[in-house]
């Protein structure tokens, strides 16, 4: 049943977000720490286990896959609700503080992902 898949996704989402909220509270900050990440790990582990026991028939998977397919439309809706005008009203300081560090981090992407490959070669 499709609703079982949806329920599984909802359970993993809520459990993960709750872990993130509690973790944020424990370290004393007003933010969710890694809630989405914990939820994703739970979903990976749960679907893996259920698959092995043949408890994830295609209909159940549909409950999750529908949301995977809705992911890009949701992101489009999200970009339509960004404060685009506000982003450009912070003046030159905001523009510079956004662009230069971001450009530097972009350049580090190949450095970090290559570092791993080198490590593998040594082993």
């Amino acid at each position: 049943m499709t609703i079982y898949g949806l329920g599984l996704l909802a359970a993993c989402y809520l459990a993960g977000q709750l872990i993130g909220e509690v973790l944020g509270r424990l370290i004393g900050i007003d933010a969710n720490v890694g809630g989405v990440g914990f939820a994703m790990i739970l979903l990976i582990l749960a679907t893996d286990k259920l698959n092995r026991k043949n408890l994830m028939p295609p209909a159940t998977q549909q409950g999750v896959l529908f949301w995977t397919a809705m992911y890009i439309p949701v992101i489009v809706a999200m970009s339509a609700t960004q404060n685009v005008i506000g982003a450009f009203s912070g003046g030159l300081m905001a523009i510079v503080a956004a662009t230069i560090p971001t450009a530097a981090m972009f350049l580090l992407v190949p450095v970090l992902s290559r570092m791993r490959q080198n490590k593998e070669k040594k082993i």
Partner: protein
Amino acid sequence: MSSWLEKFFVQNGLVVAFLVVAVIMLVSSFISRRITKKKIPDSAVAIVLGLILAYIGGRIARGTKGIADVTMFSGFGLMGGAMFRDFAVVSTAMGASFDELRKSGLIGVLSLLIGVGGTFALGAVLAVAFGYTDAKSITTIGAGACTFIVGPITGAAIGAESHVIAISIAAGVLKSILVTIATPALAGSLGLNNPQAAMAYGGLMGTTSGVTAGLAATDPKLVPYGAMTATFYTGLGCLLCPSVLYYLVTLATR
């Protein structure tokens, strides 16, 4: 517009948003195929159209939530809000490999530390270059260079002036838009085509909205890996900026 019709649109807000986004996707697919000859993926076109819609909405309603501030499109606030976004992002994990995540775990942690530390340091140095001399302003602007959540949380925690907090929010939002647009364009030359690179990228960039939108426009299969590290970034930033990093800035500015 007559008030009963407006009320009708508001009452069915989420469904209105579904319809409008479906039309945007249709138009984007057409633009991608016919005008750019598939050089720009349809999801990238759709996200840019979304940003344009946000600009128009901001112009009309003079609010902060883009098109969602225009009454008849208020359903966008729910469809594009954090709950739906996170729910959809989590669902993408079903196709991800746990082994890949575990193998790149160290890279993920490293990228997060370099991402928050490096971005903050560069933002702080730029604040000094722009003439800010007090530790509170420098720290808040450095935090704003991380994400638009880290900036105001840090600023509020250390008691920065409100115009500096506004700059930090603007910098963070600008960053997420920049990451959204630049990622599909730069992905090829940065080797952003495998799970490890996506995890490093997610940790270095950190803006969840920018990372997920940027990867969606590049290769949807990479979304879960980038989102996995990016989700820890804001929390780490909120932890480090008002504490350790603020302390280091006060030492440096003394």
